[in-house]
């Protein structure tokens, strides 16, 4: 039977071209699969961002484009620089970040620790802690308005029952405090689950070895649990910045006392964060250009905060992968 001789040494390697062709096919399919998202990305993110940038450099004051629109360079930004109210709003934004984010982390981690302990009816507690997240924004706001109302709100009633002054006008005099309560109550649930997953990813053996070595619960938490959770904490910190940024838009409007006239017009100044300030300039005075510039200042502020967080991470975030000794 005649057989062909298969050469012992392979001839010129062919796989390379085939792999490249396959890669091209997959690339095509890949972008095909992503096309809806890409469409959204361009329509919802890219174009608006570009527009926002252009707006901030213009003197646009209405929706109508054909009215004496021209380029004003950095005028809007200079104006913002001299705007005391803008700076105040920035200060309030900073205060919000510095208070709500640590509160979030502490609450979420605390709740997660509780849920990680071996207690009965775990599912029940977890549900109760998480329900607040499901409540729609408007309901969250009104429920807390009922809590914070000067005359008869639950907070004042509780304070009164404890013997403290029960006549605080929270919504008017301490709007940021109310905002804090709404934010912590309404958004701690998801972070709690994330921390819980993080806690469970630490193998029980590490705790057992530490117990045998003599470490008590507190010490184990500080020397083992916390260091290993630092990546999750970092994630929650950065996430918190943007969550706060977005929620600090809606809630001040909904929590403002009295009826609303224009969008965001009755918000107490203390709760006017920079993004809200931009909104007010646009829907109050129709000042699109200036509003856009203020919004960009807000974004810049967020970027600086995030960058600082990331840079600090090198000092305190544990960066190993999840191989605990196997």
């Amino acid at each position: 039977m005649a057989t062909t001789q298969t050469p012992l040494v392979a001839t010129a390697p062919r796989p390379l071209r085939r792999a490249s062709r396959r890669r091209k096919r997959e690339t095509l399919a890949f972008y095909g699969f992503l096309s809806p998202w890409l469409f959204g990305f361009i329509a919802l993110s890219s174009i608006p961002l570009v527009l926002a940038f252009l707006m901030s450099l213009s003197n646009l004051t209405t929706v109508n484009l054909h009215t004496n629109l021209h380029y004003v360079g950095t005028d809007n930004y200079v104006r913002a620089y001299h705007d005391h109210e803008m700076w105040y709003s920035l200060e309030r934004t900073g205060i919000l970040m510095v208070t709500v984010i640590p509160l979030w982390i502490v609450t979420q981690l605390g709740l997660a620790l509780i849920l990680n302990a071996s207690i009965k009816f775990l599912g029940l507690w977890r549900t109760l802690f998480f329900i607040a997240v499901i409540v729609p924004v408007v309901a969250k706001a009104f429920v807390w308005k009922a809590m914070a109302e000067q005359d008869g709100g639950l907070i004042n009633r509780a304070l009164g029952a404890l013997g403290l002054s029960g006549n605080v006008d929270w919504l008017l005099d301490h709007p940021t405090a109310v905002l804090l309560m709404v934010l912590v109550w309404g958004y701690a649930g998801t972070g709690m689950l994330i921390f819980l997953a993080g806690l469970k990813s630490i193998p029980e053996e590490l705790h057992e070895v530490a117990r045998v070595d003599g470490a008590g619960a507190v010490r184990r938490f500080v020397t083992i649990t916390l260091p290993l959770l630092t990546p999750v904490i970092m994630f929650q910190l950065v996430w918190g910045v943007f969550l706060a940024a977005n929620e600090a838009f809606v809630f001040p409007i909904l929590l403002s006392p009295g009826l609303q006239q224009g969008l965001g017009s009755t918000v107490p100044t203390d709760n006017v964060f920079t993004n809200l300030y931009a909104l007010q300039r646009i829907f109050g005075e129709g000042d699109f250009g200036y509003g856009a510039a203020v919004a960009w200042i807000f974004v810049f502020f967020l970027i600086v905060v995030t960058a600082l967080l990331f840079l600090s991470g090198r000092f305190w975030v544990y960066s190993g992968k999840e191989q605990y000794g196997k």
Partner: protein
Amino acid sequence: MAGIDLQTVVKTFPNGVRAVDGVDLTIEDGEFMVLVGPSGCGKTTLLRCIAGLEEVTDGAIFIGDRDVTDDNPKDRDIAMVFQNYALYPHMTVRRNLAYGLKVRRTPRREIAQRITETARLLGLEELMDRRPLALSGGQRQRVAMGRAIARRPAVYLMDEPLSNLDAKLRVRVRADLARLHDQLGVTTVYVTHDQVEAMTLGQRAAVMNDGKIQQVDTPQSLYWSPVNLFVAAFIGSPSMNLVDARIVDNSLRFAGFSLPLSELGRDAADIPDRVILGVRPEHFTLVDEGHSPAWSIEGEVTVEENLGAEVLVFFPVDAAPVETDEIVSIRAGEEEEALLAQEARALFTARLPSGTRQFRGTRIRLALDPERCHFFDPETRRSLVMRAPADEPIPALA
């Protein structure tokens, strides 16, 4: 340095499982005691009870002369080495070693001294500033041991510390462990499912099954004088050959073979009408052509495994395989799982010195030494004729 005394220790889990079922055990000061048994026999649970990681349901545990039954792990003066090492991944080797000492407020100078000593003992000096992620399996294992050693506890507890190492490394580390024990002399309780480790490492081994200790003895005694069917089948690799046999007309009958009882001498009196016969694979002798000793059996070799110095031959005998609970639980714990469905006939194994002869497909005749056969009561599974440990080394285990 202290001995351990376990008194009727019982551990029942909330789901009703009795993992430890009344264990009594005394471990001498400085002894290396191995707890060995198939998966689920309760050995790890027992170890964790000694450690204090599991609460004992009943009974008492003494370390030294102290009743530690109610004590936290940290008050028992023990150190533990886990199967997965459980090194703190975010700490360097140095900090891992120091952790237990720092927690106990040991003065800094002493910590440094002990760490240097331990590092030298285990060859970790180069690795002190590395993190566990940057270490090999063997290195991590040594750090895990170092952590226990640096603490200088009264007792070491080890939970299958070698099972994550590859085979060759395991053999080396086993030797190191034995050497370490000679040097440090600390009471050690060592849990393993591998009876080879039990036989080579332990001064004594406690064979466990179903939460109870079957036998505590030196490896020699466990091998030569197993107290019941379980120990006999568990110790030794390949496992002891077992078959149901009956006494008919003064001879032991099974699978068509007939062995005269007279060869057993006085021991024959202890054997009831129905009995389980056990022969270790290494206690067969190949019979030359033509000869036919009184105690011999023959069969056709279906499988042959050449191990270099020895040959394992497998041949079926015309009897049903012995399927008691013990055997099933041992087999469940074995690494190899049968690829083919269970045969209707028992498969015997024999270890023979290797030579040039090919056994496969041939019929062979093997002689049994009555002095080396074991007999077990089919009901109680206890060993009926107790053998004295022979003065020869246990054959290298496959």
